[in-house]
């Protein structure tokens, strides 16, 4: 089972494409899935770090970490799947209004004899129409997209990226932060009633500190920012880039945006709808014939239609 199936990619849809192209597309989506897993993992680790500082309990922290990691992974999966649209492709015309496809292939008002065929024949018609449609595909890479939607998604991911970057930095420099905290504690020890000393830097007897020797996320952030200086910005940008690259790929890579998989997926859906349209038409026609064959008597008083109830 390819890795990409974890984000809902079905390679069987592309069976009519050349093998090289299928391999390439599977490779792309496998790589993308792996990237999303890495992003999810970073989020999980970072959320665990935050939870450890807040709750000082390993089980709770790991539970929250896994939950947040899965949440971010699925959010990213949602962004990926809803980002695969057909704007800039000729398929858009048929995909958003299937009637255009039926009309072009004369599936409207078929003669009655057309419906005497088996369902499999109708399936073949739909498949034939799909193949013809594939030949008509033309893409325009410069077609503009809905910038608001993209901006919202970029903003959400950037926000998550910055939040989880901090968690990762805290884990990375936990020892150094603890040295800073110890120095601050030494300073504040001279004022034993100091609020920070009493409530933030001194652990309670039943809940010893884990990872960072402080009760406060904000103080930890302060220590991190003061200690790292300009390096914090650089590491933030590094983690932010990791969060942004899959999103940029979804929107900008020609192999994804107008890639073979997206086109085949659209064709597959058009084909399915066409086939079901033909089947529906067939059964409508059959049922109408059957109804016409019936000798019906309508009694306006009883509101009943009765079959063969005429009397001599």
């Amino acid at each position, binding site marked *: 089972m390819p890795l990409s199936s974890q984000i809902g990619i079905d390679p069987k849809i592309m069976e009519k494409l050349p093998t090289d192209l299928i391999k390439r597309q599977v490779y792309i989506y496998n790589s993308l899935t792996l990237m999303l897993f890495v992003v999810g993992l970073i989020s999980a680790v970072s959320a665990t770090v935050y939870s450890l500082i807040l709750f000082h309990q390993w089980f709770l922290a790991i539970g929250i970490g896994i939950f947040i990691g899965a949440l971010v992974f699925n959010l990213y999966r949602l962004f990926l799947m809803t980002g695969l649209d057909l704007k800039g492709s000729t398929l858009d015309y048929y995909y958003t209004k299937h009637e255009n496809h039926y009309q072009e292939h004369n599936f409207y008002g078929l003669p009655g004899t057309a419906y005497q065929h088996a369902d499999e024949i109708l399936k073949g018609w739909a498949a034939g129409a799909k193949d013809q449609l594939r030949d008509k595909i033309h893409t325009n890479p410069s077609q503009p997209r809905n910038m608001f939607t993209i901006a919202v998604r970029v903003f959400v991911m950037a926000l998550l990226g910055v939040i989880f970057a901090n968690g990762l930095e805290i884990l990375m420099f936990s020892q150094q932060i603890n040295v800073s905290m110890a*120095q601050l504690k030494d300073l504040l020890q001279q004022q034993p009633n100091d609020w920070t000393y009493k409530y933030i830097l001194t652990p309670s007897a039943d809940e010893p500190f884990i990872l960072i020797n402080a009760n406060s996320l904000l103080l930890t952030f302060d220590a991190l920012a*003061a200690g790292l200086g300009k390096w914090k910005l650089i590491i933030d940008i590094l983690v932010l880039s*990791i969060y942004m690259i899959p999103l940029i790929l979804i929107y900008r890579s020609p192999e994804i945006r107008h890639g073979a998989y997206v086109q085949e997926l659209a064709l597959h859906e058009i084909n399915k709808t066409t086939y079901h349209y033909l089947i529906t038409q067939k059964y409508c026609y059959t049922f109408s014939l059957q109804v016409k064959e019936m000798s019906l008597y309508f009694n306006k008083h009883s509101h009943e239609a009765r079959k063969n109830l005429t009397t001599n």
Partner: protein
Amino acid sequence: MTNEKKYFNVSQIFFWALIALLIILFIVKSDWGLFNEGKFSRQYLFDDSMNKIAVQEEENKKTEESDDSALIKRTWQWKSFDGKTYSLRFSIPKREYESSKMVRLKSQPNHSCWNEMFNHDRKGLRNMVEGYRNIIKEQQLDYMQALQMVVSSAQNFEYTYVTNNTQPCRKIKDILGNKPSTDCKSQPYPHGCCDNVEPFAVYSPIEYAVNGAGDCDTKSLFAMAILKCLNMGFDAEMLFGEVEAGHHAMLGVCVPNPPHRNLYANDLRTGKRYYAWECTQRNDNADLGAPVWRMFKNWRVHPIR
């Protein structure tokens, strides 16, 4: 490779390169010295001090002196330990100067006179303290730099002997046998001398600010008064004891991790340790806690309340 393929491949390589860089950072972060552990505590204290300064500025604005003719104006310029030259313009009300003298003359002939003079002079030093605060804010000094800036300003004037009637200037000789000048003003070696400074041969902080003449306890008292008024989050007190030159007074500052830790005295009631700071010497070696004396005996903290 087509351009289409290039886009994905390059992005992918970039992604994994960033992940690799992150992993390398995890492993070698300490070796690269990216994290400055000492900066946070200093920054914390600095911010804390700045908050206190902001609160006090508001309070001081309410009671500013407005009559120029009733003010004694001075400008000080000195070099601090960081090599920077600082300039301070300040004014002291004449009546505060006169009443400060009176308080000194009426004070006890022992160490408690330091308390009386400090408690009186707080108000008169307000404008000067304001000036120090402005320097700290404008130059963005951390608490250690602020400390050095204040103490170096007190050290800046030449040493001047200050005596009372028990030991007049004419009887004073230094270890080389030289007599000081009888002019009561700051001047180079063999220095000036101020006679009949009753009752304890020490000038009040306001008198030092106006005249710039003082010896060990006058300079230390002045520095301590300014530091106490600045209220930057650490304690400053007067220390007294014996050195090879005889009885002596120094400034005591309670700060963690000073540059030198050789000279200090413990306040036995509070358990706090005050590092001694020689205020008479004007040189860069006379830093906080530095060993400027070979002998350091019977030193005690005199708490100013």
